[in-house]
């Protein structure tokens, strides 16, 4: 059920032209500054932009081919808009059932219960939209989109209209979805943190063009992309829980370049985890420090350097196959004679567990 897209959309002051393929499952983040065409691309995928041209194939179905465009109501998709956009005249149950009642006769009947349970809406079913909080409304909107068992799920900044508390309320649900769904999910966001937490793949948009596409952990660590030069630039590391140390209340997390020691979590052994290391929390030494409080020290090879600003340099290191970003001053880089290929040690001051 992969997605193949080659789409263009021309408007008076803006044009979109992108080409990409997506795997059959996993969350792809559409990331970029506002006005770069994220929402337009999502609307084009849904068939809501009649001027769009190009080619779009989702699974085995052709949704767009040249001027032919399958109308939105014939596309098997779920769309969650920025605002919840619930039907005000229907209660929660009828909102969720709206799409279910319109499925083609031969379609597999997904259960309302699954969508309701996935988003924890059991107690809200008989309420009207205006009796719900913003976060609850958005959860209903997500359940409504999911209830039809779509071939693709499109989420347009579903957290943008919510305050921090409501965001925190919904994020866990989205993380659940991320693991539970076997369809491609496209997630528009301009929040790096959301992308780091939720996305597997990244489409980086700039002024209606695709700047880069690929797995999130790879793109976050690429020095030629703006992501690696933001003040809070970070590396994302996929790992696995290797075990727990009850004596010091720590957990061991293995990744391809070694083993992290982290404050204890309660995940079972073998659970996949996603770790986040801020580039500002990494430092470089030429010899392995012995008398230090830092637990996470790894041998590494300098792969590349890129000027960050006048005083700072971003260093891309390789820990085996795992890239790691480290921000140092230009003076330190010169003093340590950091050049590509040089063998060093990295000290990671802190690691965050994302998921």
């Amino acid at each position, binding site marked *: 059920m992969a997605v193949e897209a080659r789409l263009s959309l021309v408007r008076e002051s803006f044009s979109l032209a992108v080409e990409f393929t997506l795997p059959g499952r996993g969350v792809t983040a559409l990331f970029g500054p506002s006005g770069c065409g994220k929402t337009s691309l999502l609307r084009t995928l*849904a*068939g*809501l932009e009649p001027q769009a041209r190009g080619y779009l194939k989702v699974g085995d179905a052709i949704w767009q081919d040249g001027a032919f465009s399958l*109308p*939105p*109501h*014939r*596309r098997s*998709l*779920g*769309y969650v*808009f920025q*605002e*919840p*956009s*619930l*039907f*005000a*005249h229907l209660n929660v149950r009828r909102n969720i059932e*709206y*799409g279910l009642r*319109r*499925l083609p006769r031969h379609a597999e009947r997904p259960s309302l219960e699954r969508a309701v349970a996935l988003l924890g809406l059991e107690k809200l079913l008989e309420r*009207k*939209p*205006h009796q719900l909080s913003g976060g609850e*409304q958005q959860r209903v909107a997500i359940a*409504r*989109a999911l209830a*039809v068992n779509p071939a693709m799920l499109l989420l347009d900044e579903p957290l943008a209209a919510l305050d921090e508390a409501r965001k925190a309320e919904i994020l866990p649900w989205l993380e659940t979805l991320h693991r539970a769904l076997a369809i491609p999910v496209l997630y528009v966001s301009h929040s790096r943190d959301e992308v780091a937490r939720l996305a597997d793949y990244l489409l980086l948009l700039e002024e209606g063009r695709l700047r880069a596409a690929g797995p999130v952990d790879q793109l976050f660590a690429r020095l030629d992309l703006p992501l690696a030069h933001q003040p809070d630039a970070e590396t994302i590391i996929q790992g696995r829980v290797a075990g727990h140390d009850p004596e010091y209340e720590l957990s061991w997390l293995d990744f391809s370049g070694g083993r992290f020691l982290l404050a204890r979590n309660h995940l079972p052994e073998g659970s996949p985890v996603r770790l986040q290391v801020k580039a500002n929390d990494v430092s470089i030494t030429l010899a392995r420090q012995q008398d230090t409080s830092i637990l996470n020290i790894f041998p590494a090879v300098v792969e590349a350097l890129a000027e960050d600003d006048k005083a700072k340099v971003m260093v891309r290191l390789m820990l085996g196959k795992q890239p790691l970003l480290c921000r140092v001053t230009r003076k330190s880089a010169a003093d340590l004679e950091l050049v590509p290929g040089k063998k060093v040690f990295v000290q990671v001051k802190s690691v965050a567990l994302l998921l």
Partner: protein
Amino acid sequence: MFAEQDLQALWLSLKLASLTTLILLLLGTPLAWWLARSRWRYRFVLEALVALPLVLPPTVLGFYLLVALGPEGPVGQLMQSLGGGPLAFTFAGLVVGSVLYSLPFVVQPLQNAFQSIGQRPMEVAATLGASPMDRFFSVALPLARPGFLTAAVLGFAHTLGEFGVVLMIGGNIPGRTQVISIAIYDHVEALEYGSAHGIAAGLLLFSFVLLLAVYGLNRRWSGAASWR
């Protein structure tokens, strides 16, 4: 309490207003929907035409209708060639006149209601598998409910109070074209103030109660029907 002729006029007025409102809701809904959605650059011309009866003296509208519907007029000629009689001085003629006269009172509230729904709910319905027709009936109509109530009541009440147009094209034939407002006028002309009072006060009360019901209902609905 009321004379036979007054009751006849009242009945005729109610019949005329009901029929006119029904026709206007049927014709006005697609017209209002089109006006609310269309991006045609000359849409404003049609909007101006629809609003014309708001500012036109009823006698002007009535005069041109009389000319058009009479035996020499284009509509009259057409009716005769189809085997019918001219519409002037008939109940059918009154219905045609009332539909034109009350058109903006029905179309404008409907157009406003459709416009205030916005594009979003329709797009949501489309992504959930609803065809354009389905979206209209399952989303646009229910969300425009307060607009329909306002449109129906304004159209009905405005037709009930019609005077100038009716007088021009219908004359004053008791039982056939004499409506309630003309009956009041006749009583006043004949200095029968008591009878005029009876009908006038009845109409006043009726109109007030009707509007009271509309505003009350709209207030109740607005809590649940506002789009958030």
